[in-house]
């Protein structure tokens, strides 16, 4: 608001005032007292002036407008003093509007703003009510203001003379007006109750005068209905209270001015050293005032305590106090003081220096409190010792270490009486005095028995405290109670000794390597033991040959990197798999070890990662395994090269994987991979024999001894074989019990046996036949002749006496008979076995045969002797063949050849006869074949029709027998 506006305001006041005076003077009612007029004129001016002052001070505050408006409207009341009925009516209508601005003033004071909608609507409601009432009176009452004067002019706009209506309206207005007044008073009372003391100081002059005015109005309204005299008195009172409002306002302003003058008093007071908070509270008129100081951690009070709660208190505001451009403090004041920032500024400025000082003190106190807390709660011991060795101060930890309950028991005593054992005291005292006067910084460890009898070990570090002049005034000693640590160290050492002993005595090899894989040194006091005794003894290396050498250098052929991998795994923090390696010994030999690597923490607690390699020797185990492997390979070789059929079955009769030998697979015609899992008796045995085989294997599985059995097995091609087999439980190779089926294919053997049996039978039959023939020949030949001779001799005997001539004749016949008998016997004997063969060998015997042959025979025969059986067989082949030549062939010549070749003798008899001989027809050749077969030889007869017949026998000649025969030859000749 500029000066122009203020000037216009003043001008309007002057115009209104002059107009009012002029109108009253020229047209006023006769009974007006000029004193009253003057008083009323002053009252209106007081409102306008107060309002303009307020606007000048705080242009944005509407309080001034409400004040001034009340004053300006006030002068409309002067119109009712006039006799002109139109002017009177205008004044009658408008003069009541002062209550609109007045109500607004009282309700909006001191901020000029309404606190609520109710506050805002009340002035308008009052205005509307009053305007309506006045209008109603003017319309229905010719004398609307009878109580004011008798000669007041009537209403010029009366439409009907109905004073009763006007009265009714008047009563209703009174009731509503009273209600509004009560509402306003209640609102004011509520505001008062809520206000802080500082706010009440501001409120009370204006609000008090206003409330009194409204209450008086209420009384007037009530008194109007009761007695006129009382109402008149109250009218006067109303005038007084109403008129007091602008003055009350001005009083408030004046009091603030006075408060500002208190700032200078404040400076004086602060200089005199008055308590700063009380001084400021007094100066600002706010007894609740608090002062806070800024620290990095937040606001603190003057004692350095945290002040966040103070700052956050409701209804307060924070006014920062600056000094040299920096916030040094803040006033936590009642929010109402913000209405007068100038005062706050002045007070803050005046107190800034003192507050700065106070702030520094608060900071120092806060720091001190922090340090004190630190010292008291620290596990470290602190003692402050004078240069005389007496304890001046100490913390709780020091008291505790001393074994005392009361810190006063330490203070003032010599520290050596508290912290040093008696026997060391003198020594310590001497050393302490030797340090004077400088008491250089030092460290020492000190063990003592405290007042509670506990043994303590404290590590002290002390430093001198100097005054401004640099002179040492005391010593601060900080100590750490390392009793527990010492105890643990001792325990650890003992544990370490035990560990080392254990490591040294266990039979496993143990070697510690670092992350780089280097073997650590072995030191009994150092837990990082390198190789243990077992390791050194097993491998024969000396310490210096191992320490700092890569462990992997000892590993032979780590081509797969498994050893290196194990070390890397352990170095990375995990336990490795077990590795088998051969390690190089000092003597050049190799030994096998199964080992693994695990990460270990250094037992001293230092965090260096180590790797523990531990293992056991497996050389012997490996040797046994290799032996076992060789044995297995050997057995496999045997099994696979054995002609027997071998297979392994489990308890259910299933073949194990690859569980058969080559003979089995080849004989039965299966591939190796086809047999695993097959049930033996289902797959390989003839269905007719399977139940028996299953039963027999079941008995073998039950522990019974099952002998050899012949069963029919079937090949993959369906061929039946006769197999002689057994089932034997094997020693447990693994968790299963296995059974070995051993079989021999006896199909061929059985055939051979059958043939052999037949051959034997034939030989026997041939023999029998030969004997029968021999017996028949003897019986029919020589025997008959001899019988005849015998009978003849008996006859001769009887004739001898009576008829000698006849006897002589009979004797001649008998001699002839005897000669024939002899010849027949000789022939027989030759047929049984020629003596020439036995005595002189095959060649002469064959020559004798040939000499009796009916056709010319060419002979090619060696004179070498052969084993008797061979010679005999050869002889009979030739004899039979030549007999056949003579009997059947019709040949003209024949050829006999006996040659030795490749360990056998080949006998062949060839003729040029008709051929077509059937070897099976005659028993002679059959018998010959058996005889030759008995000597493992073969007899072949080739007899194509018309091409002659060749009988050929090949008989093996055992070398040994042959040589023996050779040696015997000279004996035979001799």
């Amino acid at each position, binding site marked *: 608001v500029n000066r122009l506006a203020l000037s216009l305001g003043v001008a309007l006041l002057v115009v209104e005032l002059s107009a009012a005076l002029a109108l009253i003077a020229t047209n006023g009612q006769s009974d007006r007292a000029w004193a009253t007029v003057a008083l009323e004129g002053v009252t209106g001016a007081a409102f306008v002036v107060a309002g303009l002052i307020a606007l000048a001070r705080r242009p944005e505050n509407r309080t001034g407008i409400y004040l001034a408006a009340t004053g300006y409207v006030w002068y409309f009341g002067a119109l009712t003093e006039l006799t002109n009925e139109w002017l009177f009516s205008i004044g009658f209508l408008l003069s009541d509007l002062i209550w609109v601005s007045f109500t607004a003033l009282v309700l909006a004071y001191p901020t000029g703003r309404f606190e609520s909608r109710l506050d805002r609507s009340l002035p308008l409601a009052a205005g509307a009510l009053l305007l309506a009432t006045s209008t109603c009176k003017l319309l229905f009452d010719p004398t609307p203001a009878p109580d004011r004067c008798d000669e007041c002019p009537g209403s010029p706009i009366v439409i009907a003379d109905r004073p009763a209506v006007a009265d009714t309206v008047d009563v209703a207005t009174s009731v509503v007006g009273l209600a509004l007044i009560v509402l306003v008073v209640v609102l004011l009372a509520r505001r008062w109750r809520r206000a802080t003391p500082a706010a009440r100081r501001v409120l009370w002059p204006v609000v008090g005068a206003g409330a009194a005015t409204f209450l008086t109005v209420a009384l007037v309204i009530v008194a109007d209905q009761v007695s006129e005299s009382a109402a008149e008195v109250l009218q006067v009172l109303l005038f007084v209270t109403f008129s007091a409002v602008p003055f009350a306002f001005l009083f408030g302003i004046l009091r603030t001015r006075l408060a500002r003058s208190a700032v200078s008093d404040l400076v004086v007071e602060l200089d005199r050293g008055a308590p700063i908070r009380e001084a400021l509270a007094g100066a600002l008129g706010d007894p609740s005032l608090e002062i806070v100081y800024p620290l990095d951690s937040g606001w603190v009070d003057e004692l350095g305590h945290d002040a966040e709660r103070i700052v956050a208190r409701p209804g307060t505001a924070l006014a920062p106090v600056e000094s040299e451009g920096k916030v040094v403090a803040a006033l936590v004041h009642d929010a109402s003081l913000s209405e007068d920032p100038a005062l706050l500024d002045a007070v803050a400025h005046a107190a800034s220096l003192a507050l700065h000082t106070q702030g520094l003190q608060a900071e120092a106190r806060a720091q001190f409190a922090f340090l004190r807390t630190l010292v008291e709660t620290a596990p470290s011991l602190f003692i402050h010792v004078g240069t005389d060795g007496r304890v001046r101060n100490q913390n709780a930890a020091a008291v505790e270490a001393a074994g005392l309950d009361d810190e006063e028991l330490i203070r003032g005593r010599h520290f050596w009486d508290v912290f040093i054992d008696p026997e060391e005291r003198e020594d310590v005292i001497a050393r302490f005095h030797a340090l004077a006067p400088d008491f250089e910084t030092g460290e020492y460890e000190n063990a003592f028995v405290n007042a509670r009898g506990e043994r303590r070990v404290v590590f002290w570090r002390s430093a001198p405290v100097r005054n401004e002049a640099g002179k040492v005034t005391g010593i601060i000693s900080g100590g750490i109670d390392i009793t527990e640590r010492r105890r643990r160290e001792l325990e650890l050492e003992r544990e370490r000794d035990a560990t080392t002993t254990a490591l040294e005595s266990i039979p496993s090899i143990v070697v510690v390597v670092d992350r780089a894989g280097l073997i650590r040194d072995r030191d009994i006091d150092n837990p990082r033991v390198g190789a243990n005794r077992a390791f050194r003894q097993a491998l024969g290396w000396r310490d210096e040959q191992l320490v700092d050498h890569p462990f992997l250098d000892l590993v032979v052929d780590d081509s797969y990197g498994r050893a290196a991998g194990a070390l890397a795994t352990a170095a990375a923090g995990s336990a490795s798999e077990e590795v088998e390696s051969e390690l190089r010994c000092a003597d050049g030999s190799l030994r096998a070890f199964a080992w693994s690597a695990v990460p270990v923490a250094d037992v001293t607690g230092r965090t260096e990662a180590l790797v523990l390699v531990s293992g056991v020797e497996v050389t012997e185990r490996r040797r046994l395994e290799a032996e076992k492997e060789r044995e297995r390979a050997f057995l496999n070789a045997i099994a696979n090269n054995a002609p027997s059929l071998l297979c392994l079955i489990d308890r259910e009769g299933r073949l194990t994987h690859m569980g058969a030998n080559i003979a089995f697979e080849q004989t039965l015609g299966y591939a190796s991979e086809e047999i695993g899992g097959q049930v033996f008796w289902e797959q390989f045995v003839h269905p007719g024999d399977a139940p028996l085989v299953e039963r027999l294997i079941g008995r073998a599985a039950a522990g019974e001894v099952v002998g050899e059995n012949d069963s029919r097995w079937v090949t993959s091609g369906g061929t039946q074989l006769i197999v002689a087999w057994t089932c034997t439980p094997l020693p447990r190779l693994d968790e299963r019990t296995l059974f070995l089926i051993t079989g021999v294919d006896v199909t061929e053997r059985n055939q051979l046996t059958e043939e052999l049996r037949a051959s034997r039978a034939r030989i026997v039959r041939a023999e029998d036949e030969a004997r029968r023939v021999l017996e028949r020949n003897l*019986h029919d030949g020589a025997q008959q002749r001899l*019988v005849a001779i015998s*009978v003849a001799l008996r006859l001769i005997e009887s004739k001898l006496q009576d008829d000698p001539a006849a006897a002589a004749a009979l004797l001649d016949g008998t001699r002839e008979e005897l000669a024939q008998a002899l010849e027949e016997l000789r022939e027989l004997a030759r047929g049984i076995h020629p003596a020439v063969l036995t005595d002189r060998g095959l060649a002469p015997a064959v020559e004798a045969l040939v000499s009796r042959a009916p056709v010319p025979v060419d002979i090619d025969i060696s004179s070498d002797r052969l084993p008797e059986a061979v010679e005999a067989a050869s002889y009979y082949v030739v004899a039979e063949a030549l007999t056949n030549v003579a009997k059947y062939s019709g040949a003209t010549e024949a050829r006999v050849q006996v040659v030795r070749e490749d360990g056998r003798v080949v006998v062949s008899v060839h003729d040029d006869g008709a051929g077509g001989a059937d070897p099976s027809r005659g028993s002679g050749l059959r018998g010959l074949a058996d005889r030759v077969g008995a000597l493992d030889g073969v007899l072949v007869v080739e007899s194509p029709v018309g091409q002659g017949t060749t009988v050929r026998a090949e008989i093996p000649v055992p070398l040994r027998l042959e040589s023996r025969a050779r040696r015997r030859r000279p004996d035979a000749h001799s």
Partner: protein
Amino acid sequence: MLGTYVRIESAVLRTAHARCVCDYQRVASTVLIVDDHPSFRASARAILESQGFDVVGETAAGKAALDAVARLRPDVVLLDVQLPDMSGFEVCAELERRNGLAPAIVLVSSRDVVDYGDLVQNSCACGFIAKADLSGEAVAALLP
């Protein structure tokens, strides 16, 4: 044991049937010689005739012998055990079946009696004579 006993006793064996023919008395017995060896037949005829027997016929086989017995009705048949077509025992049994106890049959053989086991004993022949021991006395001894 039996064989041993018989061998020691004699080459002549008197069988149980011998007593059966005892009642059949003849002064000069007629004989039929049955043998497949001609030389034995000649010798046997010579020695038997020289000692009073009347040889009425000779045959060389079993069947022929049966016919000859039926035709000639000899008192004695000198019967060889081994014949080409039948054995002497079979001929003996057939003769008994046809003729009852007649004629008296004397078995002869160049083999020993023990070679035939109990065949001789169980036969219906009067006895057995080894061929080498053949004589009229031997035959007569079997004919009581």
